[in-house]
């Protein structure tokens, strides 16, 4: 289970792989956090519930990450950890239920290093091979 950044001339691209789809989502969140914030200990002092639906698993991933983006730039709230996450596929609708934790953004403590305008759908495809789920996510910077 890991992520690694790959070269992209204008934006930031990250390759994520994990043994389950849930873990792929969790690691993608870690990659998102790595892009926006310098290494710092965050605290999980506030919780938020996220409920999303999408017609494809890729769209669900984009929407989930964009949700973290929205919390950061609109609510000034920083995601730190995932407390629980489940994904089900019912009648071709992918549903995500998650409980995430983090803390309010404090510009005196937290140093944001990059603004992700949005998580894109560019060439987004989640592939399963040899029991490993892999995808490449492009963040628009």
């Amino acid at each position, binding site marked *: 289970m890991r992520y690694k*950044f790959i*070269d*992209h*001339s*204008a*934006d*930031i691209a990250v390759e994520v792989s994990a043994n389950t789809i849930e873990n792929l989502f969790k690691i993608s969140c870690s990659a998102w956090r790595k892009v*926006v914030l310098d290494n710092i200990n965050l605290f999980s002092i506030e919780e938020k519930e996220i409920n999303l639906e999408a*017609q*494809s698993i*890729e*769209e669900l991933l984009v*929407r989930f990450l*964009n949700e973290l983006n*929205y919390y*950061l*730039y*609109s609510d*000034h709230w920083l995601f730190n950890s995932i407390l629980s996450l489940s994904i089900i596929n019912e009648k071709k609708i992918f549903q995500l239920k998650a409980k995430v934790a983090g803390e309010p953004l404090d510009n005196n403590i937290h*140093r*944001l*290093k*990059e*603004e992700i*305008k*949005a998580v*894109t*759908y*560019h*060439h*987004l495809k989640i592939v399963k091979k040899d029991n490993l789920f892999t995808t490449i996510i*492009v963040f*628009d*910077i």
Partner: protein
Amino acid sequence: MNIQGIELEKISDNLWEIPQSSGMLVPGRIYASQNMLETSFQNDEALKQVVNVAYLPGIQKYSLAMPDIHWGYGFPIGGVAATDIENGVISPGGVGYDINCGVRLARTSLDYNSNKNKIQKLIDNLFKNIPTGIGSSGAIKKLSASETKRILKNGAQWAIENGFGTEEDLSLTEETGRLNNADPESVSDRAIERGQDQSGTLGSGNHFLEVDVVEEIFDETAAAVFGLFKNQLVILIHTGSRGLGYQICDDNLQILVNTQKKYGFNLPDKQLACAPIQSQEGQDYLSAMRCAANFAWNNRQIIMHLAKKTLNETFNISGIDLDFHLVYDVCHNIAKIEEHEIDGIKKKVCVHRKGATRAFPAGNSQIPEKYKEVGQPVLIPGDMGRYSYISVGKEKSMYETFGSSCHGAGRLQSRHQALKQAKGKNLINELAKSGIIIRAKGYKTIAEEMPNAYKDVAIVVDVMHNAGISTKVAKLKPIGVIKG
């Protein structure tokens, strides 16, 4: 020439064609020199993206790329595509997340040589008065949702009504700083929320405010009409619709990625998701996109006003003596309904400019009265260490590029490569040695945006100049930059 499996046929020294192949509805055309093609496109997907755009239903004539083309998502950055408004589509990917990202140039009466000693103070004051950086806010008081909606409808007119500029500014802004048929009800609450405290803020990334000196004039007539003279201090502003625009793009993409089957579209990249212009989804996006465009014009108008006040205070000079005027404001991420001649017939099309500037020529009814005899200014920022250019739109643009030209230098290195190359260097000192003062929220931004990370904008501008699409008027040299 073959690059990454894509065959290119030479049309002229500065124009290359990708022949139409299976799935493409039109050929691709790229404005570039042979050297640019051989050196810049070996390791990215930009040319493949020119091919992909040619799949868009209703695309007219060519999938076009300007010489600053580089790898984007969906569309290449530097891409232009016009689609038939009756049978064609609109694609948010052809506009980008930063809707109406654009450039504004303002001129002053100040001569650089007489004011050299005050530039440091000016940059410090600009950095203090204009919020920069990630999620920056607070240039003006936080607006209510209903007041924000007024901006979405009225664009830069809102700033003028609230004391941030003059009526003259509107006449010198593309579309007078307001696109009609922008219904705030087509914008989500989330997007409005993100915009409420961001009017008058630069943001981060490649956005900036520069103090430049007019270093060289190529076209005396056009320069005089634009009010430019050698050694003049001018202000160049580059920013867009901030979080509000990003949210609008994302909101609409969420809808459109799920309507591709409904309309029978099978595009090579999800990020090209689109809707027929005449469909409800297409009209909803167009309306919301226009709201974001209006927000961006208002944003740049407020920033310019804050810059003007800062100049007044720093130089202790009155408004009349400063003679501060907007030269022009152009957008370079937009989709607009325009009339163009196609195969001898005038036709309404939706022109997507994703990292491309409108370049309408002399006599065009859409450009300010003041510029009717020479053509519209085309503002082309370079990197912060070298120079930027002012060009002017030419008649040929109307026949070849749907009235469009380049928008900037275009990245050469990824952010990661730039950071690696900047390691161990003191870029702030290096720039200072070349006479450029920089103030930024974070060193990382300076490193990512270092001059070497970009193509030489002079080469980009020369391609369009030599192709006769937009010709050079003046070269600007940066002497001070504020960034996020």
